[in-house]
């Protein structure tokens, strides 16, 4: 389909950002481009950036919704620092993204939307298309609204409905620019609007019109092509972190033979986990939308007592509400997986923005001595494996687990190599056998210190548990001072011993470097990209990324002890670095923090690392 007039340039990678009003359909546009990117065989990662209001005032900067995709022929670990191509459906979208594109980015605008009213609404004093603001950029002016109307003039469709396809005009232009075929997208329209042939037709016409417009006006001196990525053999798909989390939980249910129960309350950005699990009752997975965060976790503890695979999902403020119940789960030593999708805090904070600031809360946010497992997923696709492992550890060690993900991972997507479920380890919870004469509620496994899980309905195992301190072994209520000391130590030791059952901490990059950069959770991709680029540029740097936080992998201190300088990077004010200082006080830690509701960029990390290397 490439026009022979234009030269086709091979690129290694590119970043496109689609931006428009929150009702302009930018998320759909982005995801359709992602599908076509997958079909083209590129590796990619995406990130949506949208306001917390459903329809913020039209035409304003606060109402801009964006979707960014980074795709290439090599490993892609991030959704990209800055866009090489920006699609701006109105002046506000241009304004909102001025810092999110490269200095020579191509900008495609709907110049029909650049009316005086809209320009003022966006906060510009003059028309940015004509006042020189965009010098250095290739600006492609497309009268998208007008051409969309024209494209569907033959159809019996009113202009208001037709304008809903405007985003497809922009997509058509991008398809042309990147030499993409639109057949797959047409199939999508046919499936999505099965009962509305008129909508299918108008979307097709508008997309084609955009494609042909880009061709006809010779807007681009070149078009671009990105070779397929060299991925390992196998079947792939695109997943968001929340989807991967839900599927990891379902895979764990299958490998444990238990029925999944999720008791949860909708909260941004965790809601999709509950929604996805609600769809899969065919696997005997039960979802319960509770009346509040507290009932979400407490109903799940009830389900855990009754023998289900217990999951609750939430985000920061919701985790605060669950604190007391987490203590109950610690005390009753029942399994419980809490997925906390971190967002900007404190309080309501920045609900649609990402942060890593719930670490203290996860580690310490309970009354009493209440240890539990804390782990963090490192990428959108890793959410699958982290959720699976969280379940495995929780069930086999009879302890609550908090799995931290974040808004970036949850809503961002990346390419996921589909595993075979039976290649995942079996999960074997310590379920007590009927009429076991030796059964005691708080007798413990010698290696794990887990107590047996006696499920109501099982003959011969009647027992009582609860929030009051229990006597070791018998499980009777006890206020005995020595027993409380013993039980406190046992609960701590039980969680510490999980270190015997997790993988070792690894170092990437140049292991023999003087400098070690450290991160945890959702920043893995951007850290790795920065480190890989520096290595290519001839710098010496080592990198270690933590998934297991409580307990740490056993070789953690070995690693920390090897380096002259340690720099800990996090999207918060330094919670992990302070935890390291507490756990391993012998070492000096530098810290690099950012708390703007935004992910790290590769560029800023590289700059920081180089400064440290050159010090």
């Amino acid at each position, binding site marked *: 389909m490439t026009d022979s007039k234009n030269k086709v340039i091979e690129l290694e990678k590119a970043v496109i950002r689609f931006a428009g009003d929150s009702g302009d359909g930018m998320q759909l546009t982005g995801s359709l481009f992602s599908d076509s990117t997958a079909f083209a065989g590129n590796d990619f990662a995406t990130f949506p950036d949208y306001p917390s209001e459903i329809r913020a005032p039209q035409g304003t900067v606060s109402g801009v919704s964006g979707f960014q995709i980074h795709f290439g022929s090599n490993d892609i670990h991030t959704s990209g620092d800055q866009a090489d191509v920006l699609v701006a459906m109105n002046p506000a979208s241009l304004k909102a993204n001025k810092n999110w594109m490269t200095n020579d980015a191509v900008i495609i605008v709907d110049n029909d939307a650049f009316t005086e009213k809209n320009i003022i609404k966006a906060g510009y004093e003059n028309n940015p298309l004509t006042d020189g603001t965009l010098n250095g950029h290739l600006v492609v002016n497309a009268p998208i609204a007008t051409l969309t109307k024209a494209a569907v003039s033959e159809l019996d469709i009113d202009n208001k409905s037709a304008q809903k396809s405007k985003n497809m005009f922009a997509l058509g232009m991008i398809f042309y620019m990147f030499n993409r075929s639109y057949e797959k997208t047409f199939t999508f329209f046919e499936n999505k609007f099965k009962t509305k042939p008129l909508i299918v037709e108008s979307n097709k016409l508008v997309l084609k019109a955009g494609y042909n417009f880009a061709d006809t006006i010779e807007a681009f001196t070149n078009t671009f092509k990105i070779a397929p990525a060299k991925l390992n053999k196998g079947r792939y798909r695109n997943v968001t972190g929340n989807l991967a989390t839900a599927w990891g939980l379902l895979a764990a249910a299958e490998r444990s033979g238990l029925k999944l129960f999720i008791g949860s309350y909708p909260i941004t950005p965790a809601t999709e986990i509950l929604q996805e699990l609600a769809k*899969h009752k065919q696997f005997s997975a039960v979802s319960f939308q509770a009346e509040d965060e507290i009932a979400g976790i407490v109903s799940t503890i*009830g389900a855990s007592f009754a023998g289900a695979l217990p999951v609750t999902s939430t985000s920061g403020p919701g985790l605060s509400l669950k604190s007391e119940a987490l203590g109950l789960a610690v005390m009753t030593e029942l399994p419980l997986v809490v997925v906390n999708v971190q967002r900007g805090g404190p309080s309501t904070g920045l609900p649609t923005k990402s942060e890593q600031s719930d670490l203290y809360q996860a580690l310490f946010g309970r009354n009493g001595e209440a240890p539990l497992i804390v782990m963090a997923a490192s990428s959108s696709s890793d959410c699958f494996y982290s959720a699976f492992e969280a379940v495995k550890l929780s069930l086999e060690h009879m302890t609550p687990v908090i799995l931290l993900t974040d808004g970036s991972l949850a809503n961002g997507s990346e390419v996921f190599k589909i595993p075979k479920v039976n290649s995942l380890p079996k999960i074997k919870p310590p379920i007590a056998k009927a009429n076991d004469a030796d059964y005691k509620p708080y007798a413990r496994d010698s290696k794990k210190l887990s107590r047996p899980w006696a499920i109501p309905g099982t003959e011969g195992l009647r027992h009582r548990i609860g929030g009051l301190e229990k006597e070791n072994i018998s499980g009777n209520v006890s206020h005995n001072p020595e027993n409380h000391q013993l039980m406190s130590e046992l609960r701590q030791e039980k969680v510490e011993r999980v270190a015997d059952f997790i993988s070792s901490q690894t170092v990437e990059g140049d292991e023999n470097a003087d400098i070690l950069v450290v991160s945890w959770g959702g920043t893995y991709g951007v850290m790795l990209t920065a480190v890989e680029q520096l290595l290519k540029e001839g710098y010496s740097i080592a990198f270690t990324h933590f998934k297991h936080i409580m307990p740490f992998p056993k070789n953690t201190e070995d690693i920390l002890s090897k380096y002259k300088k340690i720099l800990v990077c996090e999207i918060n004010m330094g919670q992990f670095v302070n935890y390291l200082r507490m756990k391993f006080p012998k070492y000096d830690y530098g810290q690099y923090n950012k708390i703007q509701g935004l992910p790290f960029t590769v560029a800023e990390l590289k700059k920081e690392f180089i400064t440290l290397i050159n010090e």
Partner: protein
Amino acid sequence: MENIIDTAKLVLTKKDFESDQMVKWCPGCGDHAILKSVENVFPELGIPKEDFVVVSGIGCSSRFPYYMNTYGIHGIHGRAAALATGIKIANPKLSVWMITGDGDSMAIGGNHFIHVARRNPDVNILLFNNKIYGLTKGQYSPTTPKGSKTKTSPQGSFETPFNPGELVMGARGKFFARVVDTNIKMMTRIFKEASEHHGASIVEILANCVIFNNKVHGLITGRDTKEDNQIFLEAGQPMIYGKEKDKGIILDGAQLKSVTIGENGITESDLMVHDPTTEDSGIHIMLANMAPPELPAAMGVIRSVKAPTIEDSVWASVEHEKQISPLKNVDDLLNSGSTWDID
């Protein structure tokens, strides 16, 4: 040779449910009689002893699970309804009994209480209403009568109390009964009816706190006053009460009114006949709100309406989805939708 069926396991007695733990309620506390009544009822229900689960929140009454030899979980303050709902949905074959008090369910757990009534899991909820916080030693609760002097209302409480029955029905609950802790026979009978009702059965027990709120229900439960101040409602029977069985309830306009049979031409046939099964809760709310001295307090099953339980709906949906879903396992799910192969 005859087939001998071992029925020994099925025949249960009170002893099967008595725990070896010391019961630590105050001497004279109404809770002792409630425990005894529950121990009376459990063996009579035809349910294997392993299938009982007793659930509670926090408060004096919430120590209950420790005093029963069943599966039990003593939760956190106010949240027993959420625990019970989770247990029942996860494992519908269990007979779930939730023990709670007026602080636990009307104050800190008020939200969960209304939602458990609305969702209607088949859980039996025994609400010990002593109209005071006992475990924290005597502060007013959401059911304490307005004007009551307590440790935190030294000038008298300023607050309008809840009537639990009215709250249950306002939350569209399907079963509400009331009993007094002084009548083991009444409690035993009503707990059994609550158990047999398929859905959330809420039983308010007028319980006496001998230490901090002694005789708060005295007018209703007192030896000399109870017959004139209580009416036991029987389905299909006219509403008659009183020492002489000569008093009754009629609907006078839109109000309930106490009358005397034989006075002003009133005969038994003028009295209201109790029907706990009407979907409309209007009369049931009026009955739950009756209070001395004008009207007797209603005892027995005030409302009992059949409705699907949440767990029945959930598991029916699971079965249906199993039939119609093209996804038979998680591999199918992971491979569904848009995928691509790299060779």
